[in-house]
């Protein structure tokens, strides 16, 4: 997929971002950034912390408002959509937060049922339970269904967070640092899970990370953000063989 030229793709990109800028007061976070995400690909976005990676995906789902530029998701411009149109679009997007953002006051089951009850009104109680168990099994945590979030470890929280987003069958997945703060073997498990999700649910994903081990496992294509814009774009080999200092410093640290 990455071999084709940019022009050819624009037509079928599921996310097409053009000339995106975002500032908070005098702090310019993103500055004229453009990128595309294509069906069923895993795009890894690299960048040091504070470079605006989280801001980028929050702009994509409309949690933040862009200052300039356009963000087209399935050909709909997020920056101009009305609230209810945005809500419909968001049902096709799964978002895994850095902290997993599980609802503290609800059990794992209630966490999973929360989006399901409101988005998939066609399912009855029994079908919902089946669906919840099926997804929990696919992240390997079926026996945690009646636990509270406070009883879960960091890795488990990430998995439940992932389960909660895929339970509504998203077409696009956005992962915010899925392996940060986890031990290496748990990190690898989560990376594997991201691959599984891609295969099983045929999702297109943006995976934000500064964990090169994770990038090596999941990436079909990589993109590096520096100074608010795309610094380099390519496949893993392009990055590993690059003699650019900034890129090297990223890959050497492992």
């Amino acid at each position, binding site marked *: 997929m990455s071999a084709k030229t940019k022009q050819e793709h624009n037509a079928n990109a599921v996310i097409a971002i053009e000339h995106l800028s975002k500032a908070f007061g005098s702090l310019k976070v993103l500055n004229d950034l453009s990128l595309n995400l294509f069906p069923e690909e895993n795009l890894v976005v690299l960048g040091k912390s504070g470079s605006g990676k989280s801001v980028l995906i*929050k702009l994509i*789902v409309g*949690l933040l408002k862009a200052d300039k530029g356009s963000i087209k998701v399935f050909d709909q411009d997020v920056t101009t959509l009305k609230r209810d149109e945005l*809500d*419909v679009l*968001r*049902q096709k*997007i799964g*978002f895994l*937060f*850095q*902290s997993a*953002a*599980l*609802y*503290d*006051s609800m059990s794992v089951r209630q966490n999973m049922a*929360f*989006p399901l009850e*409101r*988005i998939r009104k066609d399912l009855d109680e029994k079908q919902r339970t089946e669906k919840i168990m099926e997804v929990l099994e696919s992240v390997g945590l079926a026996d945690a269904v009646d636990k509270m979030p406070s009883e879960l470890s960091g890795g488990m929280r990430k998995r439940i967070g992932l389960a*909660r*987003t895929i339970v*509504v069958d998203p077409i696009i997945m956005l992962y915010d640092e899925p392996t940060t703060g986890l031990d290496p073997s748990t990190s690898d498990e989560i990376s594997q899970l991201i691959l599984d999700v891609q295969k099983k649910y045929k999702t297109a994903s943006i995976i934000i990370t500064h964990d090169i081990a994770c990038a090596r496992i999941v990436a079909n294509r990589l993109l590096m953000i520096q100074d608010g814009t795309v610094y380099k774009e390519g496949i893993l080999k392009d990055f590993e063989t690059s003699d650019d200092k900034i890129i090297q410093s990223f890959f050497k640290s492992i």
Partner: protein
Amino acid sequence: MQERVNKKLSSIGDKILHWRDSVNDGLLNTGQVVLFLGNIFRESFTRHFEFREFLYQCYKIGYKSLPLISLTGAIMGLVLTIQSRPVMIEFGAVSMLPGMVSVSLIREMGPVITALICAGKVGSGIGAELGSMRVTEQIDAMEVSSVNPIRFLVVTRVWAATLMIPLLVLYADAMGILGSWAGTNIKGDVSFTLFCAQAFGILEFIDFVPALIKTFFFGAVIGLVGCYKGYHAGRGTESVGLAANSAVVVASLLVIVVDMIAVQITDMFTT
């Protein structure tokens, strides 16, 4: 000389800039409040009302506050009675004591003290809960899963507080009257029936209704302020404490202000 003038001028310039910033902040905040209220109003009257969450909040705000309100209500009645007793004896009007205490309980003490205690308990609870949900991105998570957090979190809590605080006030009034009866019996001997006859003999419609109406506003204020402070908490964990704290301060202050306005309005209609 020139230098000093320049310095003076630039410090004045800084002050003006600073002043302009705070005016801007003020306007921004006012805009935010208006937007927030508008959203709550709109989301209150959709067919997607989150009824189960509303009931759960009623349970949390109402039922869970009962022990605290029982105690404060009873003590309020007791203390009021014990303190007023010597004065009433001096005027030879001890039989007026139950009536006087119930009037002041129902008109003022019950509503205001209960509301202030709820501003502490309920307001800070909501502020801290929503604040921590904001900081840990749970509110964002709700939003991206196409659930309107205003509808699910805010509307339910505001309505629950608006309806539960008046019930808690009525309950506190009742506990206060019981406390007062206990108070009269420390140094006297009045049967409960006689006490009630003396207490309710003086009470009029005008004692009840305005007091009841204002408690709905107290409830709304407590719910709204708690939700606003929590929902708009900053980033970083210290914002949770800040949200809870300022929820209590602002809600208590507004309760007093609403009370003052309510008294003025009642006064206009009764004289």
